[in-house]
C-alpha cells in the first residue's frame, strides 16, 4: 500500500539530516506502530506521507513515496485528502465545525461528494466508531476520547485507505485509550485500512500491532513484523514497557507481547510466588493535613469529602481518570480555588491565607505544561532570577537543577530543552524558595520512557532530601515505581486510600503490568530483588 524509497529530510539551514535514506513498506490493512526517542523524526516521517511535510514545515524532503500505486511525494495535502487521513495529537484544535455531523461532512464537502452519499457514509463511519448517538452534539461538549473518535471518523469518512495518527492516546485515560486502540485494530483488520500510529506509551499497543518501526536518535529506521523480528527490535530499544523489561530480566525467549502470554511464561518459569510484600506503613511528622475538602464549579461538586494527611518525605499519588478531580484537588490545596474544608500546613497555617510569595516558602505547584513557568531567554537567566526572587545565595537554583539533570549548557534557551529537562528546570525554580511540599499535575504527560525514568529518579532524590510530594497522575506504571501512598479518585470522591502496595493490586485491569503478570510484585525491580 505504501512504499517509501530513499527518504531523507533536512530542516532548513541544518546540514545534519533528521533521517536519511529510509526504505520502508506498509501493507494494506497493516496496523503499524512507529516509536523511538523524542526528536528522532517520527512526526516528520508521518507527516511526509500526506504532504504536510514539506508543505507545512520548513525543510527539504528527498526520495520518493508511493501510496496505492501513485507517486505522492511532491503532492499537496489537499490533493491527497481522498487517500490519506491524518489525525493530530490534539483533535479539539483541528475541528472546523460546531456539530459532530458537520465535522464529519467537512472533508467530503471539499471532495465534492453528493449529499445522499455523504449521509450514507456518515451513518456508516459513525456506527463503526460508535459515535452515532453523538452526531447532533456540539464538538466542545464531548469527552477527550469521544473527540478523538470523531477526529478519526472525519479522517476516514471519505473512504481513505491510509490513516495517520500522531500519539492519539496521549491525552486519554487508560479506559478511553484501550477502547480507541481496539477500534483501530478493527479498522485495519475488518476494513483493510492501513493504520500508521506514533505512540510513546506502548504497553497496551504491542499486543495489537502488526509491525514496529523503530526510529533511533541517529535517524536510522528498523522495521520488524509480528511474525519475525519483534524480539530483536524490542531488545534494541533502550527503555520498554515493564512487561518487556520483566521478560528481558528473566531471559524469556521470545519476549511476551501480551499480558496473557507473559502470565503463562511466568507460571512456566516456576518462580516462587511469594506473598505480596506489604510495605510497612511509614509514619512520621505530618507535612500537610487535608480534611473534608470540597470544590464546586457552578454548584456541581468536582471534589467532595476528601481527607488525607501527607507524612513528611513521602510521595503520595492522586490516581484517577481524566475529570476525576485530581487537578481541582491540587489547586484547592494550594488555595487558588475556592473550597470548603481544612487544609493545614505543619505549622498550622492554611495556604489559602498566605500571600502567593509567602506560600512559595511552604509549598509549590508545577502545572501540566511546566514550560509555562519558564519566562526568560536562557537557563542561566532563569536560575539567576530564581535565586534573586528567593533571596537565596547565588547558585542555589543551579545546584538544585544540576542535581536533577546533570551538567548542561546554561546558555541554552529554556524552550530548546526537552520536555523532561524543562520539567526539571521548573522543579528547581519552584523548590528554590525552600518549599518543602511539592504538588505535581500529570508530570509524565508527553514524556517518553527515558524521560519518565529520569523524572522518577529525580523525585526519589527529592524525597530522600525530605521533600513531601503529592502528584496527580493516571500513569499507573509511573506511580507503581514511585509512590508510597495512593488515593484513588472517581467522580471527585476517594474510592480507595492507603499505601501504594495495598492499593495497586486492587486496581484490576488498571493495575501495573508486573502485578497483572506475577500477582506478587509491583515492579520489575521487586522481581529482580527477589531472585
Amino acid at each position, binding site marked *: 500500500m505504501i512504499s517509501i524509497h530513499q527518504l531523507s529530510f533536512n530542516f532548513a539551514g541544518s546540514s545534519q539530516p533528521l533521517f536519511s535514506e529510509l526504505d520502508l513498506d506498509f501493507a494494506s490493512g497493516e496496523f503499524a506502530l512507529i516509536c523511538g526517542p523524542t526528536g528522532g523524526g517520527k512526526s516528520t516521517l508521518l507527516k511526509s506521507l500526506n504532504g504536510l511535510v514539506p508543505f507545512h514545515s520548513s525543510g527539504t524532503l528527498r526520495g520518493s513515496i508511493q501510496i496505492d500505486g501513485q507517486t505522492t511525494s511532491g503532492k499537496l495535502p489537499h490533493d491527497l485528502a481522498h487517500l490519506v487521513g491524518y489525525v493530530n495529537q490534539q483533535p479539539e484544535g483541528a475541528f472546523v465545525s460546531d456539530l459532530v455531523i458537520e465535522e464529519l461532512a467537512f472533508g467530503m464537502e471539499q471532495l465534492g461528494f453528493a449529499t445522499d452519499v455523504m449521509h450514507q457514509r456518515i451513518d456508516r463511519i459513525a456506527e463503526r466508531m460508535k459515535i452515532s448517538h453523538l452526531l447532533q452534539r456540539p464538538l466542545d461538549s464531548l469527552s477527550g476520547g469521544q473527540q478523538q473518535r470523531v477526529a478519526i471518523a472525519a479522517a476516514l469518512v471519505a473512504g481513505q485507505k491510509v490513516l495517520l495518527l500522531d500519539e492519539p492516546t496521549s491525552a486519554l485515560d487508560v479506559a478511553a485509550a484501550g477502547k480507541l486502540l481496539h477500534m483501530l485494530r478493527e479498522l485495519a483488520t475488518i476494513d483493510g485500512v492501513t493504520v500508521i500510529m506514533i505512540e510513546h506509551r506502548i504497553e497496551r499497543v504491542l499486543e495489537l500491532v502488526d509491525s514496529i518501526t523503530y526510529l533511533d536518535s541517529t535517524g536510522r529506521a528498523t522495521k520488524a513484523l509480528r511474525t519475525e523480528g519483534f524480539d530483536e527490535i524490542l531488545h534494541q530499544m533502550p527503555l520498554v514497557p515493564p512487561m518487556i523489561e520483566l521478560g528481558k530480566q528473566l531471559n524469556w525467549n521470545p519476549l511476551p507481547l501480551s499480558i496473557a502470554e507473559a502470565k503463562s511464561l511466568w507460571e512456566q518459569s516456576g518462580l516462587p510466588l511469594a506473598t505480596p510484600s506489604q510495605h510497612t506503613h511509614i509514619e512520621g511528622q505530618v507535612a500537610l493535613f487535608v480534611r473534608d475538602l470540597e470544590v464546586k464549579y457552578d454548584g456541581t461538586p468536582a471534589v467532595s469529602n476528601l481527607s488525607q494527611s501527607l507524612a513528611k518525605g513521602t510521595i503520595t499519588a492522586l490516581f484517577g481518570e481524566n475529570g476525576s478531580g485530581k487537578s481541582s484537588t491540587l489547586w484547592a490545596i494550594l488555595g487558588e480555588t475556592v473550597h470548603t474544608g481544612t487544609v493545614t500546613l505543619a505549622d498550622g497555617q492554611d495556604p489559602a491565607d498566605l500571600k502567593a510569595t509567602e506560600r512559595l516558602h511552604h509549598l509549590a505547584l508545577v502545572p501540566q*505544561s511546566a514550560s509555562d513557568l519558564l519566562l526568560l531567554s536562557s537557563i542561566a537567566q532563569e536560575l539567576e532570577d530564581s535565586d534573586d526572587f528567593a533571596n537565596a545565595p547565588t547558585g542555589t537554583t543551579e545546584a538544585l537543577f544540576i542535581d536533577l539533570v546533570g551538567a548542561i549548557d546554561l546558555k541554552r534557551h529554556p524552550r530548546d530543552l526537552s520536555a523532561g529537562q524543562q520539567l526539571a528546570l521548573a522543579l528547581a525554580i519552584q523548590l528554590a524558595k525552600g518549599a518543602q511540599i511539592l504538588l505535581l499535575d500529570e508530570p509524565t504527560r508527553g514524556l517518553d520512557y527515558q524521560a519518565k525514568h529520569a523524572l522518577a529518579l529525580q523525585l526519589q532524590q527529592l524525597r530522600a532530601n525530605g521533600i513531601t510530594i503529592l502528584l496527580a497522575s493516571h500513569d499507573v506504571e509511573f506511580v507503581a515505581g514511585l509512590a508510597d501512598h495512593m488515593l484513588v479518585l472517581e467522580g471527585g470522591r476517594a474510592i480507595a486510600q492507603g499505601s501504594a502496595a495495598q492499593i495497586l493490586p486492587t486496581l484490576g485491569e488498571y493495575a501495573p503490568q508486573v502485578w497483572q503478570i506475577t500477582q506478587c510484585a509491583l515492579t520489575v525491580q521487586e522481581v529482580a530483588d527477589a531472585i
Partner: protein
Amino acid sequence: MSNRAGVLTTATWWWLGLALALLASLNSFAPIQIAICSLSIILIAAYASPAKRNAALRNYGLLAVSIVVIRLIFRVIFNTYIPGQNNLINLPEVSLHFGELHFAFMGPVSDTTILDAFNDGLRLSAIIFGVAMANTIANPRKLLRSTPSALYEVATAAAVAVNLAPQMLVSIQRVRRARLLRGQGNRLRHLSGLVIPVLEDTIARSLDLAASMDSRGFGRRGILSRRMVAVARMATLLGTVLLGLASYLLLATNSNPAISFGLVAIALLLFASSLRIWGTHSVRTKLVLERRGIADYLVLALAFGALAIVASQSIPALQLFSWLR
C-alpha cells in the same frame, strides 16, 4: 452556532458585522457609533450561545473601554492647543528641544481635544463591536469552510488569523495562571516572558488548524487549464489593485467621486469573473445548504442601505443628510 443564531445564515451575520464596522469607520457622528455599539451588544446578548455570551461581552467591553481611555490619555499627552479654544484642564507643559526640533507635551487641554479623542475612541470601539458581534454569534471557522476556492490562499491565511484572537485568550489565561504559581507578579522583565509562551502556543495551534484543514481537502480544486488559472489570478490581482486605487482617490484627493465608483464597479466585475472561472470548476458540495430567507435579505438591505447613505455623503450632489458629515 447556537440554535437561535440560525435565524440568519453564517454569511449574513458576517456581512452585517462588516457593514456595521464599515459604517462606524465612515463617519464620526457619536450617536451612530453609540447605536452601533448598543446594537452589537443587544445582538450578542440575544443570539450568542450561552457558553460564549458572558465572556465575549466582558472581554470586548473591556477592550472598548480601554481603547477610549488610551485614546484620551494619548491626546492629552501629545496635545496641540490652538489658542481661542475653550480651555478645559490646565496641565503643566513639558517641552523638549533637539537642536532645531521642538516637542511640546501636555499643556492646556481644550474641550474640543477631549471630544475629538472621545469620538475617535468611540469609533474604534464601534468597529470592534461590529466584528465582535459576528465573531461571537457565528463561528468564523464555519464561514471559512464555505469560502470560494478562488480565495484558497487568502482563506488559509485567514484560517490562521481568525483563530489567533480566541486562541490567544485561552493561552494568556493558562500562562498567567502558571506564572501565578511561580510567584512573580508584574515585573517588567517578565513581560517578554509572558509574550513568548503565549505567541508560541497561539501560532502553533493556528498552524495546526490550517494543517488539519489542508489534510482534509480544503483548497482542493477541479482540473483547470494553466491558462485559465493565470486568467483568474490576474483578474483577482487587477481587481485588488483597482479597489486600492479607488479608495485612495475617494479619500485622499479632490477628484470626481464618480471616477472612484466607476473603478469600484470594474473591480467588482473582475472579482465576479474570477470567482465564476473557479466556480465552474469547483468540486465542493454541501451536506446542508444554508438558505437565505426573507430575514437575511431584509437585514442585508438595511445594513447596506445605511452604509450607502453614509458613503454617499462624500459626493456633494448627494449630501441630503448634512448632519452626518
